[in-house]
């Protein structure tokens, strides 16, 4: 084995590190460690001259390992790995010591901070000696995509892919396309008709030869890994033909399974189901679509009340905001006023969330149209009761109005409950099938909530629309098309790059005990029944290391996080 020659670089980060940590002292002390060939400090290690210094040192001094003591590896690990690559050595021969975020920025005492920084750097030096060269792997990319759900998200994703000339299997559980949007009349704030938004898309999907439409179907199983999934799609209904199963080879999956509305019956205090003219937003939407706003008794109501946040933003039901109800409520106010000009609309809200483009203007328009906006408290609730005979309205709503601080009584002939969105009850089954995670509310979890909102932690599985969280139409469409764009990029490349950091099983050491098998969240650990050995599918593995820690034979190795490397690090921080 070649001699280990380590270059150690301690960054001053301007004064961010150097003002507390004595970088020169660390350098001097660590340069005496075995295998350390070069040790330097520099003002900004991540700067171009800083990186060039490392590259030059690697070439001149035949360094084969590099340690940079600077900021968090979450910040600049990639930067320096690139520098190593430039210098012609494997990028994984690199280790970073975090002496800024977890040292100079959080400790004031120069002596202890310097001691800690030295320990962290020493640990990195000891660790890097055990690093191994790693190479990324590649797999083929199947250009077909499976889209689950035929709502606006599924339609948008399918169209984006199919119109680029790639096969799409669009699986919809019901017998028609359009999803929840097909139940809506007009859309806020532009008042486009939902019907118009959908018909064009549905027609294009139906006409596109690249789309294989599978209505009344659902995913039965999914195996394989990114670029190489095998999906089995069968009849959605239990009484469907179980033999009519299709085996599909797909490279990616877009999950667009949408939401279901909150069941207003769970909230007892609104009298939903008991008072005939307390209706949910979807029931009211139906009246709007039919152009027939009437009470159960057939009267045209004069007083309307819209109650926001039914089942949302509450302690007892869902803590989150469903995002679309505020604007939908304003839309109702608008539609009511235009349908029944002599009507009065009271809008009972907790907070008015009008964050989107044009939403604030829409809100303003509604208030100028004399919608009576009344604020009730979070975790309080308006009480709806039947009015005494002879009152001007059928019902009275009692509410503790926040802005006036008064308990008030509002007349209402029809109460519209703005029911929020919730995850579909079967979303857990889908999550298990495609191996993605759900949050506590049942929404699918994205790979990164900010930077990677359409990917999931399972490579090749994307989420779009309201199956991930409540969303409005533009966000849903944007997400669906973003997912499609991600897939198109991969299809164009034809190859899938698999990260070099994953777990691998040493077949000689594995005894086939199968302790590791159930631990993998991505089902990457497979059991070879013939060889009686477990095996890690590197394309599926995300390098969490759960199986590695559990393997009682030390047969599974976590690449780049080996026991040996971590032991060295422990020794380093404690020496």
């Amino acid at each position, binding site marked *: 084995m070649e001699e280990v020659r380590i270059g150690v670089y301690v960054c001053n980060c301007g004064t961010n590190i150097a003002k507390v940590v004595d970088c020169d002292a660390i350098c001097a002390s660590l340069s005496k460690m075995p295998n350390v060939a070069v040790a330097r400090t520099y003002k900004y290690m991540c700067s171009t001259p800083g990186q060039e210094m490392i590259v030059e040192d690697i070439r001149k001094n035949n360094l084969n390992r590099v340690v940079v003591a600077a900021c968090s590896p979450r910040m600049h690990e990639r930067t320096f790995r690139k520098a190593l690559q430039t210098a012609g050595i494997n990028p994984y021969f690199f280790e970073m010591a975090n002496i800024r975020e977890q040292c100079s920025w959080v400790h004031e005492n120069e002596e202890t*901070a310097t001691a800690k920084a030295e320990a962290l750097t020493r640990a990195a030096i000891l660790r890097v000696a055990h690093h191994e060269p790693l190479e990324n792997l590649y797999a083929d990319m199947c250009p077909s995509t499976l889209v689950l759900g035929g709502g606006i998200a599924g339609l948008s994703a399918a169209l984006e892919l199919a119109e680029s000339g790639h096969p799409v299997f669009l699986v919809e559980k019901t017998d028609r396309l359009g999803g929840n949007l097909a139940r809506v009349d007009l859309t806020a704030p532009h008042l486009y008709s939902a019907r118009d938004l959908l018909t064009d898309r549905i027609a294009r999907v139906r006409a596109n030869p690249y789309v294989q439409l599978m209505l009344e179907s659902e995913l039965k199983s999914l195996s394989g890994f990114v670029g190489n999934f095998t999906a089995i799609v069968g009849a959605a209904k239990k009484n469907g033909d179980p033999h009519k199963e299709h085996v599909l080879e797909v490279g990616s999956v877009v999950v667009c399974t949408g939401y279901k509305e909150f069941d207003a019956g769970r909230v007892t205090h609104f009298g939903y189901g008991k008072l005939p003219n307390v209706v949910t937003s979807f029931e009211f939407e139906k009246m709007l679509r039919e152009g027939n706003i009437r009470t159960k008794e057939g009267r045209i109501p004069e007083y309307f009340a819209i109650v926001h946040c039914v089942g949302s933003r509450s302690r007892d039901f869902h803590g989150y905001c469903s995002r679309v109800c505020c604007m939908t409520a304003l839309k109702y106010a608008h539609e009511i006023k235009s349908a029944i000009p002599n009507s009065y609309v009271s809008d009972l809200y907790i907070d008015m969330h009008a964050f989107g483009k044009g939403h604030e203007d829409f809100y303003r328009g509604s208030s100028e149209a004399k919608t009576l906006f009344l604020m009730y408290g979070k975790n309080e609730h308006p009480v709806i009761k039947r009015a005494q005979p002879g009152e001007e309205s059928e019902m009275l709503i009692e509410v503790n109005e926040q802005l006036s601080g008064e308990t008030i009584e509002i007349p209402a002939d029809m109460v519209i409950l703005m029911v929020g969105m919730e995850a579909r009850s079967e979303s857990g089954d889908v999550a298990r099938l495609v191996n993605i995670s759900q949050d506590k509310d049942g929404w699918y979890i994205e790979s990164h909530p900010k930077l990677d909102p359409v990917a999931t932690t399972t490579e090749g599985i994307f989420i779009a629309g309201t199956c991930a969280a409540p969303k409005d139409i533009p966000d849903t469409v944007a997400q669906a098309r973003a997912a499609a764009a991600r897939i198109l990029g991969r299809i164009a490349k034809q190859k899938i790059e698999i990260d070099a950091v994953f777990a691998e099983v040493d077949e000689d050491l594995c005894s086939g005990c199968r302790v590791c098998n159930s631990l993998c969240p991505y089902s990457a650990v497979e059991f070879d029944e013939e060889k009686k050995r477990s095996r890690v599918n590197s394309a599926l593995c995300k390098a969490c*290391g759960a199986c590695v820690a559990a393997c009682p034979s030390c047969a599974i190795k976590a690449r780049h996080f080996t026991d040996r490397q971590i032991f060295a690090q422990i020794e380093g921080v404690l020496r």
Partner: protein
Amino acid sequence: MSFEPKIVGFLCNWCSYAGADLAGTSRIQYPANVRVIRVMCSARIDPTFVLKALRDGADGVLICGCHPGDCHYTEGNYKALRRYELLKQTLCAFGIEEARVRLEWVSASEGQVFAEVVTDMTEKIRALGPSRFRVEQENASQPVHQEVTK
């Protein structure tokens, strides 16, 4: 000289390490006694790491992972929790005080929580005194850890 505890912290990459970074970017001060080792997930933490750290003279070991339900790897933190529960029993049998090994949930947004956990743990271990291996190590001329890694 007063006793300064040495604490080895094993932090998961996605939540707790990011949380500790956030404490840094927010300049939240905490004692310099914890030395952090990054692992991808709290589920990677082999109980051997904890024993090894103690044996090599750590006065305490802090394990931090994502909050239950928030794991980047879905349920890695539960695996850490299961091992932690059994590890506590085992360490107790070896006479290691319970406060020396601690499992905490720290999310990426909880820089403050991380600082509080470290501060609290440092104080508790300071009160407990050095671990027997630390004493042994400081008394012996030969560092103990060398015999462990081959």
